[in-house]
C-alpha cells in the first residue's frame, strides 16, 4: 500500500481491509489491554482539556473568568455569549477600533487570493513542464523542486525593501515602487510567492500522471495547448487542487510571521493572528475577551478540519516540508 492509500484509509474514506480475527486473548493480554485503554483515555483527556478550558472561559463573564478557575463552572454554572459579541464588534483591551471582525475580514481577504492564485499559476507551470514541454523542462522542474529548501526567513528583509523602495540598478528603476505600504496585497502577494515551490511540486506530481490518451486525443482534434489546459487538465486535477487548497488556506489563515512582517506599517491590514498575538499581553485584564478572540480564530480551521479531514490529512502530509 502506498503512503497515499494508507492515508486515505486513515481518514476513513475506504473501509478497513478485512482482518483475520485476533487470536483469543489470554489473561495477561487482558491486563495489557486495560492498561492500554487507560493510557489512551488519559492522553486524549490531556490533549483536549486545555482547549476545553479555553472554550469554557470564553463563555464566562469578566468577573467570573478573573475571580475563579474555569473548572469551578461546574459548581456555579453561569454562561454568556456576550464576550463573542464584544470581541468581534466592540473591541476593548488592545484591539483597535471596532473589535476583531474587520481583522477576520483581512484574514479572509488575504487567504482567498493567496490560495486561488497559486493554484492557477502553479497548475499552469506544472502543465507546461509535464505536457507542453521544452528542451530543459526537466532542469527547470528540478530547480523549482529544489527551492523548497529555502526557508522564507531568507526573503523577508529584501522583500520588505523591494515593497517600500522598488528595485534599482545604478539609479535606474527596474522594478517600480508599488506603493503597497503594508497593505493587504503585500501580505497575500508574499504568501503567493512563498507557496510556489510546494504548489508546483504537488501539482506536477499529479498532472504529469494524467492519462496520455486524453491529452493526445484533444491534440489530434486540433485543440491548442492553452485550450487543453482549461478544458482537460484543470478539471481532471481537482483532487490534487483540493488537497493543496485546503493546506494552503489553513497555512495562510494560521500564519503569524508573514502577516506580522508585511503589515507592520499599517495596522488596518493586519490578519487576525497578528491582532490576537498583541492581545496576549492583556492576560491579566481581559481574559474573557482573549479567550473569545482566540476561539474566533480557531473556529474556521476546526470546521475545515472536521468536514474535510481526508483532504486535510493529505494536504498536511504533502505540505509538511513547507515554511
Amino acid at each position: 500500500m502506498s503512503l497515499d492509500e494508507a492515508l486515505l484509509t486513515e481518514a476513513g474514506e475506504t473501509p478497513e481491509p478485512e482482518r483475520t480475527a485476533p487470536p483469543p486473548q489470554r489473561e495477561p493480554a487482558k491486563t495489557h489491554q486495560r492498561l492500554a485503554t487507560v493510557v489512551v483515555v488519559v492522553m486524549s483527556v490531556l490533549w483536549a482539556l486545555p482547549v476545553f478550558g479555553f472554550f469554557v472561559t470564553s463563555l464566562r463573564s469578566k468577573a467570573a473568568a478573573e475571580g475563579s478557575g474555569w473548572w469551578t463552572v461546574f459548581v456555579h454554572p453561569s454562561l454568556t455569549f456576550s464576550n463573542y459579541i464584544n470581541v468581534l464588534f466592540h473591541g476593548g483591551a488592545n484591539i483597535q477600533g471596532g473589535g476583531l471582525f474587520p481583522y477576520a475580514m483581512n484574514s479572509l481577504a488575504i487567504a482567498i487570493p493567496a490560495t486561488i492564485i497559486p493554484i492557477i499559476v502553479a497548475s499552469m507551470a506544472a502543465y507546461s513542464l509535464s505536457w507542453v514541454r521544452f528542451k530543459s523542462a526537466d532542469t527547470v522542474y528540478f530547480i523549482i523542486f529544489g527551492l523548497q529548501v529555502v526557508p522564507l526567513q531568507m526573503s523577508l528583509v529584501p522583500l520588505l525593501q523591494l515593497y517600500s523602495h522598488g528595485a534599482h540598478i545604478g539609479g535606474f528603476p527596474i522594478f517600480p515602487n508599488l506603493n503597497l505600504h503594508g497593505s493587504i496585497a503585500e501580505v497575500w502577494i508574499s504568501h503567493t510567492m512563498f507557496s510556489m515551490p510546494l504548489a508546483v511540486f504537488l501539482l506536477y506530481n499529479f498532472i504529469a500522471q494524467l492519462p496520455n490518451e486524453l491529452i493526445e486525443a484533444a491534440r489530434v482534434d486540433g485543440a491548442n495547448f492553452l485550450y487543453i489546459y482549461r478544458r482537460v487538465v484543470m478539471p481532471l486535477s481537482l483532487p490534487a487542487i483540493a488537497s493543496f487548497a485546503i493546506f494552503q488556506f489553513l497555512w495562510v489563515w494560521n500564519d503569524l510571521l508573514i502577516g506580522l512582517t508585511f503589515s507592520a506599517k499599517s495596522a488596518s491590514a493586519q490578519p487576525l493572528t497578528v491582532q490576537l498575538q498583541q492581545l496576549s499581553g492583556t492576560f491579566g485584564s481581559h481574559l474573557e475577551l482573549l479567550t473569545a478572540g482566540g476561539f474566533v480564530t480557531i473556529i474556521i480551521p476546526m470546521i475545515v478540519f472536521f468536514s474535510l479531514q481526508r483532504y486535510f490529512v493529505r494536504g498536511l502530509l504533502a505540505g509538511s516540508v513547507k515554511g
Partner: protein
Amino acid sequence: MNLLTTSLDKLLGVLEAVGGFVAILAFLFWLAGKVRGRFERPLANILLLGPAVILLLVGLVIPAIRTIFLSFRGQYVIGPDVKYVGFANYKWAFTDPHTLHTLERTAEWLVIVPLVSTVAGLVFALLVDRMKFQVIAKSLIFMPTAISFVGASLIWKYVYQYRAPGLPQIGLLSEVAMKLGWSHPPNWLLSSPLNTFLMMVILVWIETGFAMVILGAALRSIPDDVIEAARVDGAKGWRLFRSVQLPMISSTVTVVIITIMTATLKIFDIVYTITGGDFHTDTLSNEMYSQIFQDFNNGRGSALAVVLFMAVVPLVTVSILRLRKERYA
C-alpha cells in the same frame, strides 16, 4: 453600517485581485490561441510558465541571494553607511554569549520536541488500534494540528497562568500543582529553564497528532500475514513491536522525525507569543526577527537567516527525497 461597507470593500478587493488576474490571463490565452504552427509551443510555454518563474525569482531566488550578501554587511543595508564587514556577523553569531545560548536552546528544542512527539504519536497509534472509540480519540489528538501556533500558544499560556498562592487560581497547572501539595509553585513562564520546556510542551501537543497519523498509517500498511506469522512464532506485545513492526516502519519514523525537526527549527510564533524571547527563551528564528525588526540590525539578522538556511538544507533534502521515493515506490 461602517463595518458592513468596509467588509464589503475588502471582499470586493479580493474579487478585483482574483478576477483581474483571471481576466488578464484569459485575454492572453485568447490572444495566444490565435497563433498556430512553429511558434505555438514556445508561446504557450512562456505564457504558462512565465508567471511562476517571475514569482519565484522576485519572491525567493533574488531575495535569498541578497540576504546572503546582506549578511556580510553592517547594521544598515541601505543608505550611505553600507559597509562590508566580512564575517563579523557570523563571528558574532557564534561567539556572542547571548547568541550562543540562543543556539544552544534551539538545539535543545531540536532534539527534545521531535523525539517526544514521535514517541508519543507512535505509542498512541499502537495502543489505539482496534479500540472501541478510536475515531474520537484520534480526532482529539489530531485536532491541534489545525490550530494556529498563536491560538495554541494562547491556550497554553492560560494553562500556565500564575497567581500568588492564596488567591483563587485561574491557571490549570498551578491549580493541579497546589492540589498535589506543592504550596508555592513558581511563576512558570518567568523561571528559566523551566519556561523553555513548557513551551516545548506546546509544540509537542501540536506535532504528536501529525506523528500519530503518519505512523498509524505505516503500521496499518504492514501486511497482516507478516504479523500473523510473527504471532504464530510467539512474538507478542513488546517483542512483536521491537522485532517486527518497528523495523518495518523505520523509514517512516525517520521522515516523521526529520519533518518535525524542520518545523521546530523554524518555530517562531510560540516563543514570540508566549514570552517574546524574554526570560531566556530566545530561539534562532525568534532572535533573527528581533535583530531585524527590534534592533534594526539587518546584517546580523541576515546572518542568522543564513545559519537557519544552512541548518534546514540537510533536513529538508532528506525529507523531500524520502517522500519522493515513497510516492513512486
